[in-house]
């Protein structure tokens, strides 16, 4: 059984993205809602509240609890932020694999694999680039032998 966990770099990347988005919302509110002071401060407050909540509490919990296991016969995923879930998929049900490798993903860790199978799909998020490439080719080889 092989074990994969989300890349730590991805957590930092998402935190930076959240900070940029929050700053952008703050700037836009300041420019367009300056005459409506109360609405502007409510939007800025909600935005930074959500950013802190996710960046400091929820995302670390998600990264800590997410584990992907691949055995000879199945894939298991354990994940969750507020509610926790465990998913199971037989390797024999895999039909095709999709990958999302973002630019500079070696630095950002924003690599994803979508496993499309009978009955649904399973998403592997924030893998290391090398691991994502290795895993997708391994799963693709399995899909090739499935009918």
């Amino acid at each position, binding site marked *: 059984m092989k074990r994969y966990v989300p890349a730590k770099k991805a957590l930092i990347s998402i935190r930076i993205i959240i900070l940029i988005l929050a700053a952008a919302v703050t700037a836009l509110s300041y420019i367009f809602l300056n005459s409506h002071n109360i609405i502007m401060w409510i939007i800025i407050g909600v935005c930074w509240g959500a950013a802190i909540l996710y960046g400091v509490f929820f995302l670390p919990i998600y990264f800590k609890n997410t584990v992907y296991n691949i055995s000879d016969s199945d894939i298991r995923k354990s994940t969750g932020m507020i509610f926790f879930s465990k998913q199971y998929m037989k390797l024999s049900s895999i*039909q*095709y694999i*999709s990958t*999302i490798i973002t630019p500079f993903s070696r630095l950002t860790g924003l690599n994803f694999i979508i496993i*499309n199978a009978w009955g*649904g*799909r399973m998403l592997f998020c924030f893998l290391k680039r090398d691991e994502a490439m290795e895993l997708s080719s391994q799963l*693709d080889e399995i899909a*090739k032998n499935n009918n």
Partner: protein
Amino acid sequence: MLENHLFSYIFKSRQHPVKIFTYTTSGFWLLLIPLARKLYRLSFDVAEWFRGDWLDIIIISLIFGFAFLRWFFITFSIDDDCIRTGTGYLGLLKSKFNYNNICSVTCSQGPFYRFFGCYKVCIDTNADFMRGHDVTLTLKKSDFRHLTNILKEKNIGKVKYSYTPKRVHLIIFSFLFSSTLSGVILLSTLLIQASRIIGRQLEQKYLTIVNDRIQNFLTINLPPIAVAAASIIVVGWLYSLAVNLLRHWNFTTVRQGDSIIIKSGFITNRESVIMRNKIYSVDIRQNFFMRMFHICSVNIDCAGYGKGRRQIAVLLPVTTNREINNSLKILLPDRINPHNKLKSRFRDFIGFTTPPFLLGISIPILAYILWRIFPEWLVIIRFVAFIAEIPVFWLFVVKFASIFTTGVGFEDGYAVLNYCKLYQFHKVTIPTSQITRIDYYQTIIQKWSKNCSLRIYTYSENVKCHKVKNFPLKQAKKLLESQDYYLDVS
């Protein structure tokens, strides 16, 4: 030399350029036409034209630019063992479809695409992708030829068995499977859209004309709204009939090796290549009239086939009961035809006819209540109640007839499920390996008469539930236990 490289880089491995126009919004054309007219009026004085309409020109450029980028980032490559695609934002979603996982490939070419020499290709696997096809591409003729050659390559030299229905059968098929609802929706949309543009004159004029014409033929005095509604239903049905007929004209089914190739269409040509081992169930469908005239239609369940809007997954549009087994033997030679081992009994007719009976008596009661609330609407309430009773009465007749056809059987790893769903009789043959769950349930009457109904869930691209009603509980359990389906919980 550089130009050639650039041209090759832009157009190779990408969809046909005409796809750029389909990625633009509908507002694009509404903006473009007046702008082009203005440029013509200014005798192609571009500077003047830009000074006057700079905002419109920028908006159009942005729409076209985004469409071009979307087209540019969507890439594909047809390899010997798989198709690779790059879709999504910036083409980042890379997928690989191995040919042995593909269930069906559907190609279509309408007049617009024919003019530009391109084809719409939809590729499907058994992966559950409810929103539509797994991948849809608009291919150039050369790419399309390359793909079809690969798909058909392994069957070259193998014997072809083909089935072409008679034209009269296609007309009957279109007649029987035309949906009034889709036609009515289209007509209503047309009227609403026209009303928005030119006011309510068109709608009122339509209603007046229809009312006047009909009143000339009929001596009874019908409310105008009822006449208009009836006319919309008739015109909607005729539209649906025409669409069905054009879609299934020139219908041909060919089996070659392990593929089935289905071609059809008059204005839009369609060709589907289906892998025979990926057909999970065969559904022989009949309505009451078809049953009376011993004709039926055969549908199949294969991922991607018949998935589009208003499409039917048909294998044999219309055939006679006598010919069906021979035709299926030719097209699907591996298929087994099991017989019913468990049949419903005539004495349980109450279980079949109670729902339409209750529906039938509830209509006059509802009409009476409505009349008491709105006494001035008596004519229209009476008319609508009378019209509503007709399909309910017909449902009663169909459900009564289904007593003699309902049944379940298992044989050599296949199951046959004979049941009636609304107005249609189904005979579904499915491998038992596709059955994922069986429930039996009892109503109060069934509990008293020791009967049960079965819900059989089967799996292909998505879950389907087949409800087979009213069997003696003891016999049903015995049959299911003989197939290792134990329903009792100890």
